[in-house]
């Protein structure tokens, strides 16, 4: 699904950090203040040339500072013991320190994901994993022939992945002769769809309730894009949903123009998912420009002064490759809007290096041809916009 989510979520390395969580129940104030005031009185007595009785009195006062803690009814026993230890060991400052330490609770979660940590590098597979890989049935066969537990585990895994391939496989399983498999697959698809719709509704409400920020709008747009890519969006409502997502991308861009590159990536994915590769190219070309002669490797340059991260640039290049290939699909290869929803449709080619497309580098330099078409060998390829009739709608 979204590359953004993958980088921050699942791949984050677990690092030992102290996760302080504000405690739920209120901490009583009186015992701590009383203890501190008594201790302060004792300290004041120590100023100057204090005689022995005064020293003794100060010591007694310090011990008396324990009393408000020890008798505090609102504190459980363990907290009273801890507080008393603090107050006894650290005059004056013991009480506030104890209150501070009791005011936060780690809830035992000493190990939490550190959001700033780099994603963990994938480890090499172990021998037994390679062996299972070699012996494993293809997923579709395993769905048909595996045990009930394995079948359910596979369906749960596919639901967890929720990408286009997983959804396609689940849709394929709807036609299985085994009615249990069909029903379980149908339920998995239904739950994924319901989850998507519920999350999108939440975003809609949040966006409608106030002035939307870039984050909220971009998340809504990417969620809609993910659902369209995966084939979870309602087929009959694809044009409407795509239009809605375009609006969210625009909102995100208005809110933060410096994020134009990441927004362009999302827009390009959306347009590719709804079979508008020409619009995907336009979205990409708004932030980058392809430079280079026909026949040589093109170089994408940022149009504006804002810096584009290398990872973003790589993604833009991959998307551009895919869009270029899609714009030149021959008419009899082209699909209707249903193709993005149909189980037979292949997953997006994002992240795949389309070496063939890269070799036809002249196709990348759309700006150089002025959108009028290019010549590849003896073949005159018309301009992208005229190569395919998209039956859904015009963006």
């Amino acid at each position, binding site marked *: 699904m979204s590359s953004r989510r993958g980088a921050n979520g699942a791949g984050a390395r677990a690092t030992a950090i102290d996760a302080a969580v504000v405690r739920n129940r209120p901490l009583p104030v009186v015992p701590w203040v009383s203890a501190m005031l008594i201790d302060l009185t004792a300290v004041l007595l120590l100023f100057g040339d204090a005689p022995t009785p005064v020293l003794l009195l100060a010591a007694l006062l310090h011990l008396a500072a324990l009393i408000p803690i020890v008798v505090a009814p609102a504190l459980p026993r363990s907290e009273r013991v801890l507080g008393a230890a603090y107050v006894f060991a650290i005059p004056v400052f013991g009480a506030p320190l104890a209150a501070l330490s009791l005011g936060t609770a780690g809830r035992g979660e000493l190990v939490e994901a550190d959001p700033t940590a780099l994603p963990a590098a*994938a480890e090499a597979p*172990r021998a037994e*994993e390679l062996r299972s890989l070699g012996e494993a049935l293809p997923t579709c066969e395993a769905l048909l022939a595996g045990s*009930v537990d394995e079948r359910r*585990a596979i369906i749960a*895994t596919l639901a967890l992945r929720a990408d286009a391939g997983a959804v396609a496989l689940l849709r394929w399983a*709807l036609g299985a002769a085994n009615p249990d498999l069909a029903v379980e697959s149908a339920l998995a698809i239904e*739950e994924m769809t*319901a989850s998507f719709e519920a999350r999108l509704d939440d975003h809609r409400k949040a966006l409608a309730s106030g002035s939307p920020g870039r984050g909220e709008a971009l998340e809504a747009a990417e969620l809609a894009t993910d659902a369209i890519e995966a084939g979870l969006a*309602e087929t009959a409502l694809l044009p409407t949903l795509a239009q809605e997502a375009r609006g969210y991308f625009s909102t995100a861009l208005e809110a933060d123009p410096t994020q134009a590159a990441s927004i362009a990536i999302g827009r390009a994915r959306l347009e590719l998912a709804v079979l508008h590769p020409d619009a995907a190219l336009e979205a990409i070309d708004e932030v980058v420009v392809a430079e280079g002669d026909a026949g040589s490797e093109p170089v994408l340059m940022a149009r504006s002064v804002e810096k584009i991260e290398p990872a973003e640039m790589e993604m833009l290049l991959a998307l551009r490759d895919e869009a270029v290939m899609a714009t030149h699909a021959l008419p009899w290869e082209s699909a209707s809007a249903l193709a993005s929803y149909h189980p037979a449709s292949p997953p997006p080619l994002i992240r795949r290096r389309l070496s063939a497309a890269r070799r036809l580098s002249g196709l990348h330099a759309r700006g150089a041809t002025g959108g009028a078409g290019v010549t590849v060998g003896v073949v005159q390829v018309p301009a992208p916009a005229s190569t395919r009739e998209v039956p859904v709608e015009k963006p």
Partner: protein
Amino acid sequence: MKSLEADVCLLVEGTYPFVSGGVSSWVHDIILGHPELRFAVLNVGSHPGAYGEPRFQLPDNVVGLHRVFCQETARPPLDGAARADLREQIRRLRTTVDTRARPSRVLAGLRRMHLDGASDSEGQQSILDDLATNDLALDELLYGRASFDLLTQLSDRAAAQAPFLDLFWHFRAIHVPMLRLLAAPVVPAACYHAIATGYAGLLAAVWSRRSQRPLALTEHGIYAREREMELARADWIREAAETDDGGFGLRTATWAPHVSPLRKIWSGFFRALSRLAYAQAGRIVTLSECNRGKQIADGAPAAKIEIVPNGVDLPDDAPVREAVNDNDAPDEGLIELHPAPLRVGFVGRVVPIKDLITFIRACDLALHSVDLQVRVIGPMDEDAAYATRCRDLVARLGRGAKIAFVGPMPPAAIYGDLDVVVLTSFSEGQPLVILEAYARGVPAIASDVGACREMIEGRDAADRELGPSGFVTRVATPKETAAALVRLASDPTLRRRMGESGRRRVAAYYQRRDMLASYRALYAAMGAGDPSIEVRGVMQQRQRGAGTL
């Protein structure tokens, strides 16, 4: 309500009389259909307050409605001194519960349920004898050393890969409801009739064992399998995080599916409950041939199983009058055909398991080709979020003028205004809706679940000779449902023929009087019934039809 000993104690889980639906309607019908018998109803609920007011008016021959709950009402979290007090109480309890002289037989039964796997009928009955002693207090389960030992055995032998803390809490969640049910006082009755396996089936089996009264079991769906399907999607069973696999993506690798040991323990538990009920029941009734096969596979003795399909009354005012624009129509037994648009009905609760979304999509697709007037008939308050989702989908598709949500209606008022009934459920037993539609000469389009296929296409050669009485579609396939709708809308002859064959099918195989006769014989064989009992008003209630769909 009279406090008489009942002839039959019906044990249901979560349904009658608090939830409307097929099983509840069936229970209501069984009670009304046996006015000579006194019934007690035991409802096993999840927790107090989970259900609202009864949806059915209890007939006069119900002498008691009893309720037991798997969980008590959730208490607010304790704070400060109260928590310290509780800790002290638990400490004292621990020392008390570990001083018992003899080991608990209930714990021994639980151990065999979990660790000995499927055993023969005698083994199951021996487990029931152990459970029937009810010699394990809740405190002993929660804080006793012996129960902790069972937990560690379970961890070693059945869930070595599961986090022990997770297993600890699941162990409690599995067994606390059991102990609460085992502690429930027996409702005296001449015989017990469980309307599912599961918790109700367990309680019925234990009571039957304790009182030495016979037990019959009727399964509409297959309880253990329905629970397994829920478990497969349950998000309250925590899986290891996606990153716990060393970065190789094992959790998301379909070639190395991760079978959760906790899910296996839960599903093994529900299967064990089914085996206990199957072992104790003298007769097991199922609705269809396909369910019979599943029960046998799950451990039910084939010799005990009897198929008694649901049944409906054939109306006296059968809608057989004349054909419209059909020269090939036979001379008699014709169903009146309504001119366009085709009147399509979805009759049932608006809940996810009915997959109303697929129905709406199908209608939207079909409306591109033919004119339809669609009505969704059934309660919408059981899952308000889902109902809203369905309404939103209709609105976004712009089909508000064609697809109407009309809410619940009495069964007698539903089918006269429909040309076809559609069921797109993910799960069904033997839906009464289809039979009620057939009785009025209305064909059905249904997904291929439960007994729908044999109800539409026929279950044996003689049945199949009557011809199909509708269309069977794959689950969650709006395209197929839409195609069937278009076919019926554009071919009135086919529609009439299918409606007619549905009515003949009901007359031959699904008559209410036949179903009631089967159960009357079943109850008589179990020693229930006292002809001297006077029950007034039951027949009148039956005529009124207390429940609504």
